């Protein structure tokens, strides 16, 4: 009997013991056991060992004390629904995830981070992507300004600390790599290769660690050509995932048309509803449709704060300040902010496969670019909201500006804490950094040393997290510089598409893949 047959027999013996064989198989195996003295002994031992171990397990279970966690869990869940802005409090909470679990590679991370930060730093100099708010004549609220309770020495000290930490933040980003990110991560040109192999994709990923063309190639491969996306949308056999994936390669009205068909058949598909709202937001004339779409988003994913931030942006665009602030207040009470990066990566892979790309290649290229669209979307959303806040600040409406800036900071925290991809987490950090930047200006304007002191602590947290991010990227790069074969990279894409990239090393370890050996 060869090893495979022996394993099969052993598997069946255990299945027989557990009563998991169907009657015919059980009778056949029982007859085989009865016919052989060796098998009878083997089976008797197994029965005996099972009985002993069952008894031992029962003995253990009977001695473990019972617990009642109901109140503690319900209290904790209530707490998670009310995110706090105090970074020092957040630091005491159990870590939601290991921030050292990121994948893009140190250089690429720094590059994207620099890009994001540059986006925010350039707010005052760049064109806006949305209409500025209608100027609203209102009185400033001097009464809302906190009393200046600190001495000049205190103010000087906290301001100095704050500046030092902001320098650290910029330094952490600048020194974590020298690569320059693609200025625009959206594919604009046809891929150099129409049908990349796994080797091509891995080579582009390696190249993407330090230079722009590698990442651009990956992004191009991960996106369908317009004609192909429209062709897929016409296919009667296309699944909802394929249709959503196809729509993600389109923009505005074309994407909306496909997504409307999807949500018409599956109104509970939260990702499709979200993508539909996004596609409306890309078309200025679709503002009424976007506004009408927002309540649907609230309903299909009620714990996701992102739809409320989107509503706030839309209402600010329409000059409905009270409506916007109300949406922001609700957003801040919700436990998560997800742009559906995991679902999006999966849909893209399905659409690529349906378009003819081989499965392994489609899944790998989708996995390696997952989260980048969401990074861009989340940073844009934060940036747009901050712009409106700055307008109110310019009008000396500090209270409204403060509400908006603090809400953006919460958005960053929610994204960071609930993200499944490193790119989302990076977006969370960048959004928080941008909010802190404008809050510093605001607190300085209203002379609030307490506010500035709080920002100092929060900046410390962000600097620490960006450093961990950099360490993770370094480790992740090892995966792609190693001499892994197709099985290895298929495993990588499988894990990323199933769980996101932030937990990939945990899962690799569970599979017995020694990551340290790759370094």
């Amino acid at each position, binding site marked *: 009997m060869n090893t495979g047959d022996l*394993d099969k027999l*052993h*598997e*069946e*013996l*255990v*299945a027989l013991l*557990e009563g*998991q064989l169907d009657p015919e198989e059980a009778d056949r195996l029982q007859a085989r056991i009865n016919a052989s003295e060796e098998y009878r002994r083997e089976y008797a*031992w*197994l029965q005996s*060992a*099972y*009985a*002993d*171990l*069952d*008894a*031992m*397990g*029962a*003995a*253990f*279970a*009977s*001695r*473990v*004390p*019972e*617990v*009642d*966690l*109901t109140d*503690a*869990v*319900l209290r*904790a*869940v209530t707490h*998670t629904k009310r995110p706090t802005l105090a970074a020092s409090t957040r630091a005491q909470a*159990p*870590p939601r995830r*290991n921030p050292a679990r990121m994948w893009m590679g140190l250089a690429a991370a720094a590059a994207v981070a620099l890009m994001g930060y540059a986006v925010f730093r350039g707010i005052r100099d760049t064109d806006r992507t949305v209409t500025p708010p209608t100027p609203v004549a209102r009185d400033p609220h001097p009464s809302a300004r906190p009393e200046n309770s600190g001495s000049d020495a205190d103010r000087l000290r906290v301001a100095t600390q704050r500046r030092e930490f902001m320098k650290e933040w910029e330094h952490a980003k600048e020194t974590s790599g020298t690569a320059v990110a693609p200025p625009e991560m959206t594919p604009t040109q046809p891929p150099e290769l129409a049908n990349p192999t796994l080797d091509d994709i891995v080579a582009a990923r390696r190249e993407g660690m330090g230079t722009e063309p590698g990442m651009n190639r990956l992004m191009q491969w991960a996106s369908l050509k317009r004609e192909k996306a429209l062709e897929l949308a016409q296919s009667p056999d296309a699944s909802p995932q394929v249709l959503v994936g196809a729509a993600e390669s389109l923009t505005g009205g074309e994407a909306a048309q496909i997504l409307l068909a999807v949500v018409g058949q599956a109104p509970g598909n*939260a990702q499709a509803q979200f993508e539909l709202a996004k596609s409306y937001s890309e078309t200025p004339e679709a503002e009424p449709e976007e506004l009408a779409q927002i309540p649907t988003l609230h309903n299909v*994913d*009620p*714990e996701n704060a992102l739809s409320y931030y989107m509503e706030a942006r839309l209402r600010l665009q329409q000059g409905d300040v009270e409506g916007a602030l109300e949406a922001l207040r609700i957003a801040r009470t919700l*436990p*998560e902010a997800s742009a559906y990066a995991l679902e999006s990566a999966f849909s893209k892979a399905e659409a690529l496969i349906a378009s003819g790309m081989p499965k392994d290649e489609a899944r790998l290229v989708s996995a390696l670019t997952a989260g980048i669209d969401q990074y861009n979307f989340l940073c844009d959303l934060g940036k747009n909201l901050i712009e409106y806040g700055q307008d109110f600040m310019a009008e000396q409406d500090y209270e409204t500006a403060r509400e908006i800036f603090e809400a953006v900071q919460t958005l960053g925290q929610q994204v960071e804490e*609930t993200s499944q991809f490193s790119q989302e987490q990076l977006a969370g950090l960048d959004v928080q950094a941008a909010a802190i930047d404008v809050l510093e200006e605001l607190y300085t304007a209203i002379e609030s040393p307490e506010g500035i002191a709080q920002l100092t602590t929060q900046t410390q947290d962000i600097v620490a997290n960006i450093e961990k991010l950099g360490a993770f990227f370094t480790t992740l790069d090892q995966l792609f510089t190693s001499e892994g074969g197709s099985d290895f990279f298929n495993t990588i894409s499988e894990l990323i598409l199933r769980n996101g990239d932030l*937990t990939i090393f*945990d*899962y690799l*370890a*569970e*599979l017995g893949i020694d990551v340290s050996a790759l370094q």
Partner: protein
Amino acid sequence: MALLCQGAADALGDLVKRYQNDIFRFCLHYVRDVERAKEMAQETFIRVYVARARFDAQRKFRPWVLCIARNLCLNELKRKKAVPMESLEEYASTARGESGEVLQSPADGADQSLMSAERQEMLARALASLDEESREIVTLRFFERMPARDIAEIVGSTEGAVRTRLHRILKSLRDVYISEKDNL
């Protein structure tokens, strides 16, 4: 879980009541400390709540939640640089009380009627000789009474592979057991 996914307010409390002791005991196997096991179990339910929209209704809840608990515990052990899945010999003979103190197993408990003390000790020593992965399988099968299909889901394997693995483990236990018996 279906009710929780639909937003029923008291569904989480019901889920906690139903599964809390299973999950707590499961976490205790890994972290070997009552308070830490409680924390891990509590955090597991928070993760369940946060991820409820992503729960696949086609899957069974128990393996899913235990998979979350397992990942949390393994991460916690890594973070604390502790050695996971300590000796099952200790599991077999001890547990800890509410305050964390070690509870010795009763020598003449009714639940031990199936095994003589000597036989139990020998088996416990044999269990202690297993590697971590094997101990985890034994824990899931005999201490958590999970079927092979659920174990496979938790450890990321197949049902058949788990059964084959169980057979190998039992065979190695037999070898240790026989060797000990011969030396008596």
